[in-house]
C-alpha cells in the first residue's frame, strides 16, 4: 500500500515536470519565432514613394515668366 503511494507520487512529479517542460519549450519556441534576427533595414529605404508627378503644377509654372 505504501509502495503504491510512493509510485503514484513519483508519477505525479514526473507528469508535472513534463507539463512544465512543455510550457517552457512552448515559450522558448514563441520567443525564437518573434525575435528579430535579421539586420534592420533603415526606415528611409522602406519609405513609400509616390511615382506620380503633379502635371497641372508643372503647367502652371511653365505659364509663369522665368
Amino acid at each position, binding site marked *: 500500500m505504501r*509502495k*503504491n503511494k510512493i*509510485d*503514484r507520487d*513519483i*508519477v505525479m512529479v*514526473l*507528469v508535472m*515536470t*513534463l507539463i512544465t*517542460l*512543455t510550457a*517552457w*519549450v512552448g515559450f*522558448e*519556441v*514563441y520567443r*525564437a*519565432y*518573434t*525575435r*528579430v*534576427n*535579421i539586420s534592420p*533595414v533603415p526606415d528611409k*529605404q*522602406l*519609405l*513609400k*514613394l*509616390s*511615382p*506620380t*508627378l503633379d*502635371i497641372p503644377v*508643372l503647367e502652371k*509654372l*511653365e505659364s*509663369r*515668366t*522665368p
Partner: protein
Amino acid sequence: MAQLNYKSSLAQYRRYLAVIREQPMFAASLGLVLSLMLVIILVSAALRPTLVAIASLLGDIRQQSEVEKKLDEKIAEVTAAQAVYLKNESRLKVLDEALPIGRKYAAWAIRLEDVASESGVKVAEWSLLEGKNFSVSLVGDVPELKRFLAALENLRRLVEIESVQLAKEKELTLIMKGVLKSYEEKQD
C-alpha cells in the same frame, strides 16, 4: 568464497523478480515512470533545441519576406517614378527655376531689378538676412508699382511675401519684406 556470494545474490535476485511478477501493479508503474523519464529527457535534450531552431528559422523567413515585400514595392515605385521622370525630364527645369537647389539669391535679385526697370520703378534699397529673408524698397508712382507687383506675382521663382508697405514721403515708396524659397529649406 566470492563465487558463493555471487550465487547467493543471484538467487536473491531471482526471488525478487518472482515477487515482482506477482505484483503487476508495481511492474506497470515502473514502466510508466521510466517512460515519463525518457519523454522528459527527450523533450529537454532533443525536442526543445530542434523546435527552437525551427521556430527561429521560420521567424527569420517571415521577417525577411516582409522586408522583401516592402523592398519589391519600393523598387516598383522607383521604376515607375523613373519612367515618369524620363517622360517629363525636359519640363523639370521649371522646377529648378521655381525652387532652386541652393538659395541663388543673386540670380533672383538681378531678375527683380530687370522687372523693376521694365515696370519703371527704381530700386532704392536692398537688404538680405541669412541669405533668404529680404527687404526691398522701391520708388515709383502707383501705376508703375502696380505693374511691378503684377510682374513680381507672375515670376516663376517662389517667394513668400510677408509684408508690403506703402509710404509717401517725397516720392511714393513701396517697402516689401519676404522670404526667398529654396529646396534646402524644404528639406530642413
